[in-house]
Protein backbone atom coordinates (compact mmCIF):
# COMPACT_ATOMS: atom_id res chain seq x y z
CA UNK A 1 0.00 0.00 0.00
CA UNK A 2 1.41 3.40 -0.89
CA UNK A 3 2.08 5.66 2.05
CA UNK A 4 2.15 9.01 0.38
CA UNK A 5 -0.91 11.01 -0.41
CA UNK A 6 -1.65 14.00 -2.51
CA UNK A 7 -1.76 16.94 -0.18
CA UNK A 8 -5.16 18.54 -0.01
CA UNK A 9 -5.02 21.63 -2.16
CA UNK A 10 -7.51 24.44 -2.52
CA UNK A 11 -8.95 25.38 0.83
CA UNK A 12 -11.19 28.16 -0.28
CA UNK A 13 -14.07 28.40 2.15
CA UNK A 14 -16.99 26.46 0.74
CA UNK A 15 -20.39 28.04 1.07
CA UNK A 16 -22.52 26.40 3.70
CA UNK A 17 -24.83 23.87 2.09
CA UNK A 18 -28.34 25.18 2.14
CA UNK A 19 -30.85 23.04 3.99
CA UNK A 20 -32.37 21.51 0.87
CA UNK A 21 -29.21 19.87 -0.47
CA UNK A 22 -28.30 18.07 2.79
CA UNK A 23 -31.94 17.11 3.30
CA UNK A 24 -31.99 15.55 -0.16
CA UNK A 25 -28.74 13.72 0.63
CA UNK A 26 -30.10 12.41 3.93
CA UNK A 27 -33.33 11.35 2.23
CA UNK A 28 -31.46 9.48 -0.49
CA UNK A 29 -29.34 7.77 2.14
CA UNK A 30 -32.33 6.70 4.19
CA UNK A 31 -34.15 5.50 1.10
CA UNK A 32 -31.12 3.43 0.07
CA UNK A 33 -31.01 1.88 3.53
CA UNK A 34 -34.77 1.28 3.79
CA UNK A 35 -35.82 0.20 0.34
CA UNK A 36 -32.90 -1.57 -1.22
CA UNK A 37 -35.14 -4.27 -2.70
CA UNK A 38 -38.81 -4.46 -3.77
CA UNK A 39 -39.24 -7.00 -0.97
CA UNK A 40 -38.59 -4.31 1.62
CA UNK A 41 -41.24 -2.13 0.03
CA UNK A 42 -43.99 -4.67 -0.42
CA UNK A 43 -43.68 -7.21 2.40
CA UNK A 44 -45.16 -4.71 4.91
CA UNK A 45 -48.19 -4.51 2.62
CA UNK A 46 -49.10 -8.16 3.05
CA UNK A 47 -51.15 -7.82 6.24
CA UNK A 48 -53.14 -4.72 5.22
CA UNK A 49 -53.79 -6.14 1.75
CA UNK A 50 -54.92 -9.40 3.30
CA UNK A 51 -57.25 -7.32 5.45
CA UNK A 52 -58.59 -5.36 2.50
CA UNK A 53 -58.95 -8.27 0.11
CA UNK A 54 -60.01 -11.13 2.37
CA UNK A 55 -61.07 -10.00 5.81
CA UNK A 56 -63.02 -6.90 4.77
CA UNK A 57 -65.20 -8.79 2.25
CA UNK A 58 -65.69 -11.64 4.72
CA UNK A 59 -66.72 -9.23 7.46
CA UNK A 60 -69.03 -7.43 5.03
CA UNK A 61 -70.66 -10.75 4.12
CA UNK A 62 -71.06 -11.67 7.78
CA UNK A 63 -72.22 -8.29 9.05
CA UNK A 64 -74.37 -7.54 6.02
CA UNK A 65 -76.04 -4.18 5.82
CA UNK A 66 -74.31 -1.37 7.67
CA UNK A 67 -75.28 2.28 7.47
CA UNK A 68 -77.35 3.44 4.54
CA UNK A 69 -75.12 4.41 1.65
CA UNK A 70 -71.98 2.99 3.24
CA UNK A 71 -70.53 -0.25 1.98
CA UNK A 72 -69.02 -2.12 4.92
CA UNK A 73 -66.31 -3.71 2.83
CA UNK A 74 -65.13 -0.26 1.76
CA UNK A 75 -65.48 0.93 5.35
CA UNK A 76 -63.05 -1.79 6.52
CA UNK A 77 -60.77 -1.36 3.51
CA UNK A 78 -60.25 2.26 4.54
CA UNK A 79 -59.73 1.13 8.11
CA UNK A 80 -56.75 -0.88 6.91
CA UNK A 81 -55.16 2.40 5.83
CA UNK A 82 -55.48 3.42 9.46
CA UNK A 83 -53.59 0.27 10.38
CA UNK A 84 -50.97 0.48 7.66
CA UNK A 85 -49.91 4.06 8.40
CA UNK A 86 -49.04 3.56 12.10
CA UNK A 87 -47.45 0.16 11.46
CA UNK A 88 -45.28 1.33 8.59
CA UNK A 89 -44.13 4.55 10.25
CA UNK A 90 -43.45 2.80 13.55
CA UNK A 91 -41.32 0.16 11.85
CA UNK A 92 -39.39 2.97 10.15
CA UNK A 93 -38.20 3.92 13.63
CA UNK A 94 -36.10 0.76 13.80
CA UNK A 95 -33.72 2.36 11.31
CA UNK A 96 -33.07 5.14 13.81
CA UNK A 97 -31.91 2.61 16.40
CA UNK A 98 -29.78 0.75 13.86
CA UNK A 99 -28.16 4.07 12.88
CA UNK A 100 -27.38 4.76 16.49
CA UNK A 101 -26.14 1.29 17.42
CA UNK A 102 -24.20 0.24 14.34
CA UNK A 103 -24.68 2.83 11.61
CA UNK A 104 -23.29 6.16 10.53
CA UNK A 105 -25.15 8.38 12.98
CA UNK A 106 -22.06 9.87 14.63
CA UNK A 107 -20.64 10.82 11.26
CA UNK A 108 -23.93 12.49 10.41
CA UNK A 109 -23.87 14.31 13.75
CA UNK A 110 -20.38 15.59 12.93
CA UNK A 111 -21.59 16.98 9.58
CA UNK A 112 -21.88 20.75 9.14
CA UNK A 113 -25.66 20.72 8.83
CA UNK A 114 -28.52 21.56 11.18
CA UNK A 115 -29.25 18.36 13.11
CA UNK A 116 -33.05 18.49 12.75
CA UNK A 117 -32.46 17.63 9.09
CA UNK A 118 -31.48 14.13 10.18
CA UNK A 119 -34.99 13.61 11.55
CA UNK A 120 -36.63 15.25 8.56
CA UNK A 121 -34.67 13.09 6.10
CA UNK A 122 -35.94 9.96 7.83
CA UNK A 123 -39.45 11.40 7.94
CA UNK A 124 -39.43 12.12 4.20
CA UNK A 125 -38.64 8.49 3.39
CA UNK A 126 -41.14 7.03 5.87
CA UNK A 127 -43.76 9.35 4.42
CA UNK A 128 -42.98 8.48 0.78
CA UNK A 129 -42.98 4.73 1.37
CA UNK A 130 -46.20 4.92 3.38
CA UNK A 131 -47.83 6.97 0.62
CA UNK A 132 -46.83 4.39 -1.96
CA UNK A 133 -48.23 1.60 0.16
CA UNK A 134 -51.51 3.45 0.71
CA UNK A 135 -51.91 3.90 -3.04
CA UNK A 136 -51.29 0.18 -3.60
CA UNK A 137 -53.72 -0.71 -0.81
CA UNK A 138 -56.51 1.49 -2.15
CA UNK A 139 -55.96 0.20 -5.68
CA UNK A 140 -56.09 -3.41 -4.47
CA UNK A 141 -59.28 -2.74 -2.50
CA UNK A 142 -60.87 -1.07 -5.53
CA UNK A 143 -60.00 -4.05 -7.70
CA UNK A 144 -61.60 -6.33 -5.10
CA UNK A 145 -64.84 -4.37 -5.33
CA UNK A 146 -64.60 -1.59 -2.73
CA UNK A 147 -66.88 1.32 -3.68
CA UNK A 148 -64.95 4.56 -3.36
CA UNK A 149 -66.69 7.85 -4.17
CA UNK A 150 -63.77 9.72 -5.65
CA UNK A 151 -63.94 13.49 -6.08
CA UNK A 152 -61.09 15.99 -6.08
CA UNK A 153 -62.19 17.50 -2.78
CA UNK A 154 -62.75 14.09 -1.27
CA UNK A 155 -59.32 12.93 -2.35
CA UNK A 156 -57.82 15.99 -0.69
CA UNK A 157 -59.61 15.27 2.60
CA UNK A 158 -58.36 11.69 2.40
CA UNK A 159 -54.81 12.76 1.56
CA UNK A 160 -54.77 15.40 4.29
CA UNK A 161 -55.93 12.99 6.99
CA UNK A 162 -53.55 10.25 5.87
CA UNK A 163 -50.58 12.58 5.42
CA UNK A 164 -50.83 14.29 8.80
CA UNK A 165 -51.37 10.94 10.51
CA UNK A 166 -48.25 9.55 8.82
CA UNK A 167 -46.18 12.57 9.82
CA UNK A 168 -47.42 12.47 13.40
CA UNK A 169 -46.89 8.74 13.75
CA UNK A 170 -43.35 9.06 12.39
CA UNK A 171 -42.77 11.68 15.06
CA UNK A 172 -43.93 9.13 17.64
CA UNK A 173 -41.60 6.52 16.11
CA UNK A 174 -38.55 8.81 16.10
CA UNK A 175 -39.26 9.91 19.66
CA UNK A 176 -39.61 6.36 20.93
CA UNK A 177 -36.53 5.19 18.99
CA UNK A 178 -34.43 7.85 20.67
CA UNK A 179 -35.78 6.99 24.12
CA UNK A 180 -35.47 3.19 24.21
CA UNK A 181 -32.10 1.48 24.48
CA UNK A 182 -32.63 -1.45 22.11
CA UNK A 183 -34.51 -2.69 19.06
CA UNK A 184 -36.10 -5.41 21.20
CA UNK A 185 -37.69 -2.88 23.54
CA UNK A 186 -38.81 -0.80 20.61
CA UNK A 187 -40.50 -3.71 18.86
CA UNK A 188 -42.20 -4.70 22.10
CA UNK A 189 -43.78 -1.24 22.26
CA UNK A 190 -44.99 -1.12 18.64
CA UNK A 191 -48.26 -3.10 19.06
CA UNK A 192 -49.37 -0.91 21.95
CA UNK A 193 -48.78 2.25 19.93
CA UNK A 194 -49.67 1.17 16.40
CA UNK A 195 -52.39 -1.42 16.85
CA UNK A 196 -54.26 -0.91 20.13
CA UNK A 197 -55.62 2.56 19.21
CA UNK A 198 -56.88 1.12 15.94
CA UNK A 199 -59.46 -0.95 17.83
CA UNK A 200 -60.85 2.13 19.57
CA UNK A 201 -60.70 4.57 16.66
CA UNK A 202 -63.80 3.42 14.81
CA UNK A 203 -61.93 1.10 12.51
CA UNK A 204 -64.31 -1.85 12.34
CA UNK A 205 -67.38 -0.13 13.79
CA UNK A 206 -68.49 3.45 14.41
CA UNK A 207 -67.15 5.19 17.48
CA UNK A 208 -70.74 5.68 18.61
CA UNK A 209 -71.05 1.91 19.03
CA UNK A 210 -68.48 1.94 21.81
CA UNK A 211 -69.44 2.24 25.48
CA UNK A 212 -69.79 5.92 26.37
CA UNK A 213 -66.51 6.11 28.28
CA UNK A 214 -64.48 4.50 25.50
CA UNK A 215 -66.23 6.60 22.86
CA UNK A 216 -65.20 9.70 24.78
CA UNK A 217 -61.58 8.50 24.89
CA UNK A 218 -61.69 7.59 21.18
CA UNK A 219 -62.51 11.20 20.29
CA UNK A 220 -59.07 12.21 21.61
CA UNK A 221 -57.20 9.75 19.40
CA UNK A 222 -55.66 11.36 16.29
CA UNK A 223 -56.35 8.09 14.48
CA UNK A 224 -60.11 8.49 15.07
CA UNK A 225 -60.03 11.87 13.36
CA UNK A 226 -57.78 10.65 10.54
CA UNK A 227 -60.02 7.65 9.82
CA UNK A 228 -63.15 9.80 9.84
CA UNK A 229 -61.46 12.20 7.42
CA UNK A 230 -60.29 9.43 5.11
CA UNK A 231 -63.80 7.96 5.03
CA UNK A 232 -65.38 11.37 4.56
CA UNK A 233 -63.13 11.82 1.57
CA UNK A 234 -63.69 8.51 -0.21
CA UNK A 235 -66.80 6.87 1.23
CA UNK A 236 -68.89 8.60 3.88
CA UNK A 237 -69.71 11.82 2.02
CA UNK A 238 -72.41 12.73 4.55
CA UNK A 239 -69.79 12.77 7.31
CA UNK A 240 -71.56 10.38 9.69
CA UNK A 241 -68.22 9.34 11.14
CA UNK A 242 -67.32 12.98 11.74
CA UNK A 243 -70.74 13.53 13.35
CA UNK A 244 -70.00 10.65 15.75
CA UNK A 245 -67.00 12.67 16.90
CA UNK A 246 -68.21 16.27 16.82
CA UNK A 247 -72.00 16.01 16.95
CA UNK A 248 -72.38 18.96 14.51
CA UNK A 249 -74.31 19.24 11.27
CA UNK A 250 -71.91 20.83 8.79
CA UNK A 251 -69.55 18.10 7.53
CA UNK A 252 -67.07 20.61 6.11
CA UNK A 253 -66.66 22.32 9.46
CA UNK A 254 -66.28 18.99 11.20
CA UNK A 255 -63.75 17.85 8.60
CA UNK A 256 -61.77 21.03 9.09
CA UNK A 257 -61.80 20.52 12.85
CA UNK A 258 -60.61 16.93 12.51
CA UNK A 259 -57.96 17.99 10.03
CA UNK A 260 -56.80 20.59 12.53
CA UNK A 261 -56.57 17.90 15.23
CA UNK A 262 -54.47 15.60 13.05
CA UNK A 263 -52.33 18.50 11.83
CA UNK A 264 -51.71 19.63 15.40
CA UNK A 265 -50.77 16.06 16.31
CA UNK A 266 -48.30 15.98 13.40
CA UNK A 267 -46.76 19.34 14.28
CA UNK A 268 -46.48 18.44 17.96
CA UNK A 269 -44.91 15.05 17.38
CA UNK A 270 -42.40 16.32 14.80
CA UNK A 271 -41.36 19.08 17.19
CA UNK A 272 -41.06 16.66 20.09
CA UNK A 273 -39.14 14.14 17.98
CA UNK A 274 -36.59 16.74 16.85
CA UNK A 275 -36.12 17.92 20.40
CA UNK A 276 -35.74 14.39 21.76
CA UNK A 277 -33.32 13.47 18.96
CA UNK A 278 -31.07 16.48 19.43
CA UNK A 279 -30.99 15.97 23.19
CA UNK A 280 -30.33 12.22 22.91
CA UNK A 281 -27.77 12.51 20.14
CA UNK A 282 -25.40 14.86 21.96
CA UNK A 283 -24.39 13.50 25.32
Amino acid sequence: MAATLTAPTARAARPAPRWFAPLATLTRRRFALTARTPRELFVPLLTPILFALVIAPALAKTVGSFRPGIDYMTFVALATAGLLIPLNTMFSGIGVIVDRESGARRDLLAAPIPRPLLVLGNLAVAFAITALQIVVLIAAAALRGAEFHVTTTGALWFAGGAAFLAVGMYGVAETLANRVPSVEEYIAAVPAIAIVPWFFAGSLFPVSSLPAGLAWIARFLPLTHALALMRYGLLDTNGTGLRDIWGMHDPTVMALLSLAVVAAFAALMVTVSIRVFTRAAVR
Partner: protein
Amino acid sequence: MQPVIEVRNLTKTYPGGVEAVKGIDFDVEPGEVFGLLGPNGAGKSTTIGMLTTTIAPTDGEARLAGFDVATEPIAARRVSGVVFQDPVVDRALTGRRNMETHARLWGVDAGRAARRVAELAEPFGLAQLLERPVASYSGGQRRRLEIARALLSDPRVLFLDEPTVGLDPRIRYELLDLIGGLGESGDMTILLTTHYLDEAERLCDRVAIVHEGRIVAMDAPRSLLAGLGREIVELRVHGSGDAALDALRRHGVANGDAFAVGGSLTIPLPDSSSAEVVARIAGLGLATESISTRVPTLDDVYLRLTGSRLDAAA
Protein backbone atom coordinates in the same frame (compact mmCIF):
# COMPACT_ATOMS: atom_id res chain seq x y z
CA MET B 1 0.44 32.05 14.12
CA GLN B 2 -3.10 31.44 15.33
CA PRO B 3 -3.51 27.88 16.68
CA VAL B 4 -5.98 25.77 14.72
CA ILE B 5 -7.22 24.06 17.86
CA GLU B 6 -7.56 26.07 21.07
CA VAL B 7 -8.81 24.36 24.21
CA ARG B 8 -9.32 26.20 27.49
CA ASN B 9 -10.45 24.61 30.74
CA LEU B 10 -12.50 22.05 28.80
CA THR B 11 -14.52 19.99 31.24
CA LYS B 12 -17.04 17.19 30.93
CA THR B 13 -19.03 15.68 33.75
CA TYR B 14 -21.51 13.06 32.61
CA PRO B 15 -24.90 12.64 34.24
CA GLY B 16 -24.31 10.60 37.36
CA GLY B 17 -21.27 12.65 38.27
CA VAL B 18 -18.57 10.87 36.26
CA GLU B 19 -15.87 13.49 35.62
CA ALA B 20 -14.40 12.38 32.31
CA VAL B 21 -12.41 15.53 31.52
CA LYS B 22 -11.30 17.87 34.29
CA GLY B 23 -10.39 21.21 32.82
CA ILE B 24 -7.78 20.62 30.14
CA ASP B 25 -5.90 23.29 28.15
CA PHE B 26 -3.88 22.94 24.99
CA ASP B 27 -3.26 24.54 21.60
CA VAL B 28 -2.42 22.81 18.34
CA GLU B 29 -0.56 24.72 15.65
CA PRO B 30 -1.39 24.52 11.93
CA GLY B 31 0.07 21.42 10.32
CA GLU B 32 0.95 19.84 13.64
CA VAL B 33 0.23 16.22 14.51
CA PHE B 34 -0.84 16.30 18.13
CA GLY B 35 -1.49 13.21 20.21
CA LEU B 36 -3.57 12.61 23.30
CA LEU B 37 -1.91 9.63 24.94
CA GLY B 38 -3.48 7.76 27.78
CA PRO B 39 -5.24 4.56 28.78
CA ASN B 40 -8.90 3.77 28.16
CA GLY B 41 -11.09 5.96 30.36
CA ALA B 42 -8.54 8.78 30.55
CA GLY B 43 -10.92 11.20 28.78
CA LYS B 44 -9.36 11.21 25.30
CA SER B 45 -12.47 10.20 23.35
CA THR B 46 -14.64 12.54 25.39
CA THR B 47 -12.27 15.35 24.44
CA ILE B 48 -12.60 14.48 20.75
CA GLY B 49 -16.37 14.22 21.20
CA MET B 50 -16.45 17.77 22.58
CA LEU B 51 -14.24 19.10 19.80
CA THR B 52 -16.44 17.49 17.15
CA THR B 53 -19.61 18.77 18.91
CA THR B 54 -21.00 15.29 19.47
CA ILE B 55 -20.54 15.67 23.24
CA ALA B 56 -21.59 18.87 25.02
CA PRO B 57 -18.90 20.36 27.29
CA THR B 58 -19.88 21.02 30.88
CA ASP B 59 -17.48 23.97 31.12
CA GLY B 60 -14.65 25.66 29.29
CA GLU B 61 -14.32 26.46 25.63
CA ALA B 62 -12.75 25.14 22.47
CA ARG B 63 -12.20 26.65 19.05
CA LEU B 64 -11.47 25.03 15.70
CA ALA B 65 -9.94 27.43 13.18
CA GLY B 66 -11.32 30.23 15.33
CA PHE B 67 -14.86 28.85 15.50
CA ASP B 68 -16.26 28.21 18.96
CA VAL B 69 -17.57 24.63 19.08
CA ALA B 70 -20.39 25.65 21.43
CA THR B 71 -21.67 28.81 19.74
CA GLU B 72 -20.63 28.16 16.12
CA PRO B 73 -20.91 24.38 15.89
CA ILE B 74 -21.78 24.14 12.21
CA ALA B 75 -18.82 26.33 11.20
CA ALA B 76 -16.55 24.30 13.48
CA ARG B 77 -17.79 21.05 11.97
CA ARG B 78 -17.28 22.41 8.45
CA VAL B 79 -13.52 22.70 8.92
CA SER B 80 -13.07 19.28 10.50
CA GLY B 81 -13.23 15.61 9.70
CA VAL B 82 -13.38 12.83 12.23
CA VAL B 83 -12.72 9.11 12.42
CA PHE B 84 -14.35 7.70 15.51
CA GLN B 85 -13.02 4.86 17.60
CA ASP B 86 -15.96 2.57 16.85
CA PRO B 87 -17.02 1.79 13.30
CA VAL B 88 -19.36 4.54 12.06
CA VAL B 89 -20.49 3.49 8.60
CA ASP B 90 -23.63 2.38 6.83
CA ARG B 91 -22.77 -1.28 6.49
CA ALA B 92 -25.59 -2.05 4.09
CA LEU B 93 -24.38 0.56 1.61
CA THR B 94 -21.35 0.40 -0.64
CA GLY B 95 -18.13 2.14 0.23
CA ARG B 96 -18.72 4.59 -2.59
CA ARG B 97 -22.21 5.41 -1.34
CA ASN B 98 -20.83 6.02 2.16
CA MET B 99 -18.21 8.37 0.76
CA GLU B 100 -20.62 10.21 -1.52
CA THR B 101 -23.08 10.80 1.32
CA HIS B 102 -20.30 12.22 3.49
CA ALA B 103 -19.02 14.47 0.69
CA ARG B 104 -22.45 15.92 -0.03
CA LEU B 105 -23.11 16.62 3.64
CA TRP B 106 -19.81 18.48 3.86
CA GLY B 107 -20.83 20.58 0.87
CA VAL B 108 -18.48 19.01 -1.69
CA ASP B 109 -20.16 19.18 -5.09
CA ALA B 110 -20.75 15.97 -7.01
CA GLY B 111 -17.97 16.48 -9.55
CA ARG B 112 -15.32 17.26 -6.98
CA ALA B 113 -16.56 14.45 -4.74
CA ALA B 114 -16.13 11.95 -7.56
CA ARG B 115 -12.58 13.21 -8.22
CA ARG B 116 -11.67 13.06 -4.53
CA VAL B 117 -13.06 9.53 -4.18
CA ALA B 118 -10.92 8.46 -7.14
CA GLU B 119 -7.84 10.25 -5.72
CA LEU B 120 -8.20 8.67 -2.30
CA ALA B 121 -9.24 5.17 -3.40
CA GLU B 122 -5.81 4.23 -4.72
CA PRO B 123 -3.53 5.18 -1.80
CA PHE B 124 -6.02 3.80 0.68
CA GLY B 125 -6.31 0.49 -1.16
CA LEU B 126 -10.04 0.94 -1.73
CA ALA B 127 -10.20 0.93 -5.51
CA GLN B 128 -11.39 -2.68 -5.72
CA LEU B 129 -13.73 -2.37 -2.74
CA LEU B 130 -15.80 0.71 -3.38
CA GLU B 131 -18.71 -1.03 -5.09
CA ARG B 132 -19.06 -3.65 -2.35
CA PRO B 133 -21.32 -3.25 0.70
CA VAL B 134 -19.24 -2.18 3.68
CA ALA B 135 -20.62 -5.17 5.60
CA SER B 136 -18.26 -7.32 3.52
CA TYR B 137 -15.14 -5.30 4.45
CA SER B 138 -12.53 -6.49 6.93
CA GLY B 139 -11.81 -4.31 9.98
CA GLY B 140 -8.75 -2.78 8.33
CA GLN B 141 -10.57 -2.08 5.08
CA ARG B 142 -13.41 -0.43 6.95
CA ARG B 143 -11.01 1.73 8.92
CA ARG B 144 -9.23 2.81 5.73
CA LEU B 145 -12.60 3.70 4.24
CA GLU B 146 -13.46 5.81 7.29
CA ILE B 147 -10.17 7.72 7.10
CA ALA B 148 -10.52 8.29 3.36
CA ARG B 149 -14.09 9.44 3.92
CA ALA B 150 -12.97 11.97 6.50
CA LEU B 151 -10.45 13.38 3.99
CA LEU B 152 -12.99 13.92 1.22
CA SER B 153 -13.76 17.48 2.28
CA ASP B 154 -10.05 18.42 2.72
CA PRO B 155 -10.60 19.23 6.39
CA ARG B 156 -8.30 21.72 8.08
CA VAL B 157 -8.48 19.59 11.22
CA LEU B 158 -8.60 15.80 11.20
CA PHE B 159 -9.54 13.95 14.38
CA LEU B 160 -8.48 10.32 14.65
CA ASP B 161 -9.82 8.58 17.73
CA GLU B 162 -7.76 5.44 18.40
CA PRO B 163 -7.37 4.85 14.65
CA THR B 164 -5.65 1.48 14.88
CA VAL B 165 -7.36 -0.09 17.87
CA GLY B 166 -8.56 -3.63 17.30
CA LEU B 167 -6.58 -4.15 14.09
CA ASP B 168 -4.08 -6.94 13.58
CA PRO B 169 -0.40 -5.88 13.59
CA ARG B 170 0.17 -5.98 9.85
CA ILE B 171 -2.91 -3.88 9.08
CA ARG B 172 -2.01 -1.58 11.95
CA TYR B 173 1.44 -0.82 10.54
CA GLU B 174 -0.03 -0.24 7.07
CA LEU B 175 -2.45 2.23 8.58
CA LEU B 176 0.30 3.96 10.52
CA ASP B 177 2.12 4.46 7.22
CA LEU B 178 -0.98 6.10 5.79
CA ILE B 179 -1.49 8.37 8.76
CA GLY B 180 2.20 9.22 8.77
CA GLY B 181 1.82 10.23 5.12
CA LEU B 182 -1.03 12.56 6.03
CA GLY B 183 1.03 14.17 8.73
CA GLU B 184 4.03 14.64 6.44
CA SER B 185 1.94 16.58 3.92
CA GLY B 186 1.93 19.31 6.58
CA ASP B 187 -1.21 20.84 5.18
CA MET B 188 -3.62 19.44 7.70
CA THR B 189 -3.68 19.60 11.47
CA ILE B 190 -4.20 16.18 13.03
CA LEU B 191 -5.32 15.41 16.54
CA LEU B 192 -5.16 11.73 17.33
CA THR B 193 -5.79 9.76 20.47
CA THR B 194 -4.01 6.55 21.24
CA HIS B 195 -2.94 4.30 24.02
CA TYR B 196 -0.17 2.82 21.87
CA LEU B 197 3.19 4.33 22.76
CA ASP B 198 4.81 3.52 19.44
CA GLU B 199 2.00 5.27 17.61
CA ALA B 200 2.47 8.44 19.61
CA GLU B 201 6.26 8.38 19.24
CA ARG B 202 6.11 7.65 15.53
CA LEU B 203 3.33 9.98 14.42
CA CYS B 204 3.10 12.92 16.78
CA ASP B 205 4.98 16.21 16.78
CA ARG B 206 3.71 16.77 20.31
CA VAL B 207 1.98 14.59 22.84
CA ALA B 208 -0.26 15.38 25.78
CA ILE B 209 -0.28 12.61 28.35
CA VAL B 210 -3.79 12.29 29.76
CA HIS B 211 -4.45 10.68 33.10
CA GLU B 212 -7.85 10.55 34.78
CA GLY B 213 -9.20 13.50 32.81
CA ARG B 214 -6.16 15.75 33.24
CA ILE B 215 -3.14 16.50 31.09
CA VAL B 216 -0.12 15.58 33.20
CA ALA B 217 2.58 16.37 30.63
CA MET B 218 2.73 17.91 27.18
CA ASP B 219 5.73 18.18 24.90
CA ALA B 220 7.41 16.63 21.89
CA PRO B 221 7.94 12.88 22.46
CA ARG B 222 11.70 13.41 22.19
CA SER B 223 11.63 16.12 24.86
CA LEU B 224 9.52 14.00 27.18
CA LEU B 225 11.97 11.14 26.75
CA ALA B 226 14.97 13.41 27.17
CA GLY B 227 13.98 13.95 30.80
CA LEU B 228 14.78 10.28 31.38
CA GLY B 229 18.21 10.37 29.72
CA ARG B 230 19.52 8.09 27.03
CA GLU B 231 19.23 4.94 29.07
CA ILE B 232 17.43 3.70 32.16
CA VAL B 233 18.14 1.00 34.69
CA GLU B 234 15.13 -1.03 35.71
CA LEU B 235 15.35 -2.83 39.00
CA ARG B 236 12.96 -5.19 40.77
CA VAL B 237 13.46 -5.70 44.49
CA HIS B 238 11.92 -7.88 47.16
CA GLY B 239 9.74 -5.79 49.43
CA SER B 240 9.29 -2.04 49.27
CA GLY B 241 10.69 -0.21 46.28
CA ASP B 242 10.58 3.05 48.26
CA ALA B 243 13.09 1.78 50.83
CA ALA B 244 15.42 0.60 48.08
CA LEU B 245 15.07 3.95 46.32
CA ASP B 246 16.00 5.77 49.54
CA ALA B 247 19.10 3.61 49.83
CA LEU B 248 20.09 4.30 46.21
CA ARG B 249 19.65 8.04 46.71
CA ARG B 250 21.64 8.04 49.96
CA HIS B 251 24.54 6.41 48.14
CA GLY B 252 24.28 8.76 45.18
CA VAL B 253 23.34 6.01 42.73
CA ALA B 254 19.95 7.54 41.91
CA ASN B 255 18.90 11.17 41.76
CA GLY B 256 15.52 12.93 42.00
CA ASP B 257 14.37 11.62 38.62
CA ALA B 258 14.37 8.01 39.84
CA PHE B 259 11.04 6.64 40.96
CA ALA B 260 9.56 3.51 42.46
CA VAL B 261 6.22 1.87 41.78
CA GLY B 262 5.60 -1.14 43.99
CA GLY B 263 8.74 -3.27 43.88
CA SER B 264 9.95 -1.74 40.60
CA LEU B 265 12.51 1.05 40.45
CA THR B 266 13.27 3.07 37.37
CA ILE B 267 16.54 4.99 37.37
CA PRO B 268 17.10 7.42 34.50
CA LEU B 269 20.73 7.82 33.48
CA PRO B 270 21.24 11.32 32.12
CA ASP B 271 25.04 11.21 32.57
CA SER B 272 26.31 7.97 34.11
CA SER B 273 26.99 4.81 32.19
CA SER B 274 24.68 1.89 32.81
CA ALA B 275 27.54 -0.52 33.53
CA GLU B 276 28.82 1.73 36.31
CA VAL B 277 25.37 2.12 37.88
CA VAL B 278 24.63 -1.62 37.72
CA ALA B 279 27.99 -2.34 39.38
CA ARG B 280 27.30 0.17 42.17
CA ILE B 281 23.80 -1.29 42.78
CA ALA B 282 25.31 -4.77 43.03
CA GLY B 283 27.79 -3.42 45.56
CA LEU B 284 25.02 -2.13 47.83
CA GLY B 285 23.75 -5.59 48.62
CA LEU B 286 20.08 -4.85 47.88
CA ALA B 287 17.74 -7.85 47.65
CA THR B 288 17.21 -7.54 43.90
CA GLU B 289 15.03 -9.88 41.82
CA SER B 290 16.25 -8.58 38.49
CA ILE B 291 18.16 -5.72 36.97
CA SER B 292 18.20 -4.60 33.37
CA THR B 293 19.04 -1.61 31.20
CA ARG B 294 17.18 -0.27 28.16
CA VAL B 295 16.32 2.92 26.34
CA PRO B 296 13.43 4.87 27.89
CA THR B 297 9.95 4.89 26.34
CA LEU B 298 6.90 7.07 26.77
CA ASP B 299 5.60 4.35 29.06
CA ASP B 300 8.39 5.28 31.48
CA VAL B 301 7.34 8.91 31.23
CA TYR B 302 3.76 7.88 31.90
CA LEU B 303 4.83 5.64 34.78
CA ARG B 304 6.82 8.43 36.39
CA LEU B 305 3.94 10.88 36.08
CA THR B 306 1.06 8.65 37.08
CA GLY B 307 2.46 5.71 39.01
CA SER B 308 0.99 3.16 36.62
CA ARG B 309 2.09 1.63 33.36
CA LEU B 310 0.21 2.69 30.27
CA ASP B 311 -0.04 -0.83 28.87
CA ALA B 312 -1.46 -2.12 32.14
CA ALA B 313 -3.91 0.77 32.41
CA ALA B 314 -5.09 0.34 28.82
